[in-house]
């Protein structure tokens, strides 16, 4: 009678082992970009200690992404990132945030630059899976808000972004006009 339970336990271990292994290796030795963030207010009060982040490329219209008349809701888009013109002074020196330089609803050709994949939601909002940075209970970043930090993001060959770090800006950006 314990055999099915042991099989279940093995399945659980296999699932979390495989998933953990994939997460540990999926963003090794990949391109790293810096992304400027925009203020978000209010912060989510329900989900614990994390900094909620919003990016200029969150809104499809702001990056010139044509999603068609139906809005392409639920579809995957690919946004090309290029280093911007301005450097930002941070606690770790000057960094050059990347900016959206193109958009495609089909996967880009390999070697055509750094692209990040996002999923389109209603209202032309694109989410990239890098909208939350979990921080420790005593981490000073816990008091940070989007806009006062720059996000360090790794992008792998499958165009999946992953937040690596947040760095505080010395001069916070003013709220961007929508």
């Amino acid at each position, binding site marked *: 009678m314990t055999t*099915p339970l042991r099989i*279940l*336990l093995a399945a659980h*271990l296999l699932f979390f082992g495989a998933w953990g292994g994939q997460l*540990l290796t999926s963003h090794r030795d990949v391109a790293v970009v810096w992304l400027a963030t925009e203020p978000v207010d209010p*912060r989510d009060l329900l989900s614990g*200690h994390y900094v909620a982040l919003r990016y200029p490329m969150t809104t499809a219209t702001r990056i010139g992404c044509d999603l068609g008349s139906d809005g392409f809701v639920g579809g995957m888009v690919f946004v090309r990132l290029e280093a911007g013109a301005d450097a930002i002074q941070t606690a770790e020196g000057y960094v050059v945030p990347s900016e959206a330089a193109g958009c495609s609803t089909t996967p880009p050709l390999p070697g055509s630059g750094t692209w990040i994949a996002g999923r389109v939601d209603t209202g032309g909002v694109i989410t990239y899976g890098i909208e939350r940075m979990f921080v*420790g209970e005593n*981490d000073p970043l816990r008091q940070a808000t989007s806009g006062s930090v720059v996000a360090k993001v790794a992008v792998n060959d499958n165009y999946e972004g992953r*937040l690596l770090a947040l760095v505080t800006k010395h001069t916070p950006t003013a709220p961007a006009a929508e």
Partner: protein
Amino acid sequence: MVEVLLVILAVVYFARRARGHGPAKDPLASLLSGAETAGIITAAQRDQLLAYASQHAPPASAARLGGAAWLGVFAGLFVVAGVSLLIARNWQEFGPMLRVGAFLATLLVVGEAAIRMRERSYGVSVPLELLWFFLPLLGIGLYAQTFQLTGDPMQPFLVWLALTAALAWLSPRPVVAAVHTFAMTAVLFAGNFVVDAASAILGNGRLAPRSMLVIPEGGATPLAWGLSFALLAAIAVQSLRLLPRSHRHHFIGVAAAWVFCLLVAPTPFHVAHPAWIILAALALVTIGMVATTWLDTSVEERAPGMTMWLGIIYALTFTWHMRDPASGAASGTGVAIIEIAFVAAIVATLLLPNQRLSPQPAWALGMKAALVVPLVLATLYLGDDMYLVWLAAVGMNLVLLVVAVGAMWHGSLVHEPAQVNLGVLVLVALLITRFLDVFGSMLQSGIGFIVAGLLLAALSWALERMRRRLLAGVREVPA
């Protein structure tokens, strides 16, 4: 210090007392021994009955949860909450590899311990099973935190429910199955109706992707519908197969509540017209009551529907305060669903076998009328004529009055003290409410309260006398 010593002494005393009494006596064995002593059965028959019971009756541990099991449940939940908080603290000083490794080791140890201890004491096996049940969810949270994963708010819960479904089916006790079924229900309602709405209300700049389970006004995806129906089916199957016998049909109420939420939440079936909402609530709760009565379910399974039905009619007794007819938008599909539910409620009530309601056919017909009349009265709220609305409000008062008196009367006839008590409760609640409801100024209220108090005291005295007489009659009726 003295209090602590007293507590310890009390615990030791009761522990010794319990040990001195030995294991609790089997009530069936005591009953059969009494029957043997009284000459009703022979010693051989007693032994045969005990042997038959030991083979066919479910073990007490599987059939219901005792005090030790409940302590085990809470012990498990406390440990789960503690582990959850420890993970939430976010141990940034430990790298991803260490976190993943520690989690896998914990899962292995807890799972293996739960397997080894499953047939032993509740105090250990129930907390371990619950911890194993929740660990996959905590693991998903840990991975999300460690690797900064952002995504669909309901996906982690759906993955967790899928991973642990087998545990619910393989557990020898109903604890994990009950928690798993409840979790499926919570995920269904939260994903369909709550998470996205809460996100929109609380702002958050739409940072999180839309839930894959959401049913928005513009129309849900086939995936959302498929998952929702799959969850509803899983709730029904798991309830019927795994939950304790007296709780197996709660899924009927879950289904009725889900349809009601489809109508009142911003979905393609949205109805914002109060009269249609009243009709929907009454029709759906009537269908639920008829279904549970038809299936001859337990009191526990029928009580929520009955309470809801009484609550709706009670709330409608206040509609004599309405000054304007009900108005509001209503989608065509939503109205069509309500009309179908209305007809289904009446047809199902009329087709319900009489013996399910009462052994006396005349009373069964009366109960059917009590179920149908509020539905018919509720249609009056759809009109523009305020006299019809007030007529419906008066009608709802009369329905409650008739139901209360009928419950007391019928309860005495069929020897059901619970029905008598329910009738008394409804009648007193209705009278108190109307006394408080009709008075306005301080002078009126003051005099009203005094008069009402005197009347209620007299009524209470009369009711108690009647109730005692009825219950005494119940006891005197020979078996």
